[in-house]
């Protein structure tokens, strides 16, 4: 099952919305944090922006459509990293620690890696599909 161009655009929009939301959320949270700041909170928006919106924009520009498995795993990884960044910011601002936070970057990285692997495994077929599509067009 392969992703259509429409779904790619949809993902791109969702990542941009998520980046915007995290930017606003981080700003408001810092506003009420009594002068305590955390880079994790302030820059949480960069995860969906540079790891989500940017790759999808690149794929659209290159007219490549990744597999559904890649989409699911990559988006899940970005969600993990984004949530982890926000929570890390929360606990840093509060002044506490929790070793469980390590689960987020680990899970996010693994998911994104699996997404890349799944896409690499489907690469020859993906290329053939695109040639076929071009032929039909």
């Amino acid at each position: 099952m392969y992703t259509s161009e429409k779904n790619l655009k949809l993902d791109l929009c969702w990542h941009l919305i998520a980046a915007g939301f995290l930017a606003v959320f981080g700003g408001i949270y810092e506003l009420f944090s009594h002068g305590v700041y955390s880079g994790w909170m302030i820059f949480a928006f960069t995860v969906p922006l540079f790891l989500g919106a940017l790759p999808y924009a690149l794929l659209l520009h290159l007219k490549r459509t990744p597999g559904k498995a890649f989409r699911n795993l990559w988006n899940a990884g970005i969600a993990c990293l984004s949530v982890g960044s926000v929570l890390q910011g929360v606990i840093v601002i509060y002044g506490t620690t929790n070793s469980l936070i390590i689960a987020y970057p680990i899970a996010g990285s693994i998911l994104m890696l699996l997404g890349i692997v799944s896409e690499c495994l489907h690469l020859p077929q993906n290329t053939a599909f695109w040639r076929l599509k071009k032929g039909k067009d």
Partner: protein
Amino acid sequence: MKRHLFAICFSAVLALFSVFFVLDTFVISKSYRSAVDMNTSMFSETTASESSKQSTSSTKSNAHSSQQQDSSSERRLGSRRAGGRTLRRSAVSDYKGTTISGSSSSESISSTDSLSSSEGNTSYQDDNVKIELTTYRVNETTVYVADVELSSAQFLKSAFANNIYGRNVTATTSSIAQANSAILAINGDYYGVQEKGYVIRNGIVYRNTAKGSDVLCIFADGSMEVVSDQEYSAEELVAKGVWQAFSFGPALVEKGSVTVGVNTEVGKAKASNPRTAIGLINKNHFVFVVSDGRTSESEGLSIYELATFLQSLGVQTGYNLDGGGSSTMVFNGVVVNKPTNNGGISERRVSDIVYI
């Protein structure tokens, strides 16, 4: 539904784990051990020789004890455990304010007699403890200073919330103080939110995991020193005679000099905030400092301003404790400062206190 099955399932798992994470961090209490008896063996050598030299004069009125006064603090410690302590409450009318000069701040620091506990007491004295409360106005902030003179450092104690050492085990400073019959109490280093950092209380090691920061050590001989936890283990510190150790920081004053810069941060905080600090003027002569903040009346102090204020008091060693909403000073059962919490004036629940 089937098309988005993965997304739905993953979102549910992520949400559940995140909720568990938040609860584990802020809500779920983990009781590791009960607070054990105090390790007062380190005082056996110093008590007899020090107590008679450092007994304070008893000149205040309204003595209401029927017990015999005893110059030996060791025997007094025994009588305290057996039947309570001897109290002499001072009269209110003889409180004096003093002007402190020599501050590095451009604003002069002045004191006011604005303390208003329910009974109006601003001092306390007995044969082993002398406490004098003074209020200052520093950089648009009200600062409360308790000048504490002791015959022995064993009267400077610490206590845990609900008498339990653990994570997210909290209570207000005033309730912990009341539970321990404290004359004077301030919030401690809120060890409960940290997973690392030495916790040595009343001569007992509760946590010996270093976190790579400055540790305030209060010794049994009444001295105070800031050491690095990379240099000594917690057990080594107790062997050296450390009675109390706190891991928050940073060190504010060492050997009479300010050790923080203008932009020193505590947990990324450079802004003015309520603060709590403890300092040593000389052996068995301490100051407990709490400042208000985050209100229209009191802006709060930066770390540098706090350090320079401690220096102006003559503090030789000063250390920053947990501030913000935790900053609380309790004297004779009354909260003397204005702790801010959730936008209002109320006490925050904390892990531990330092008290007399």
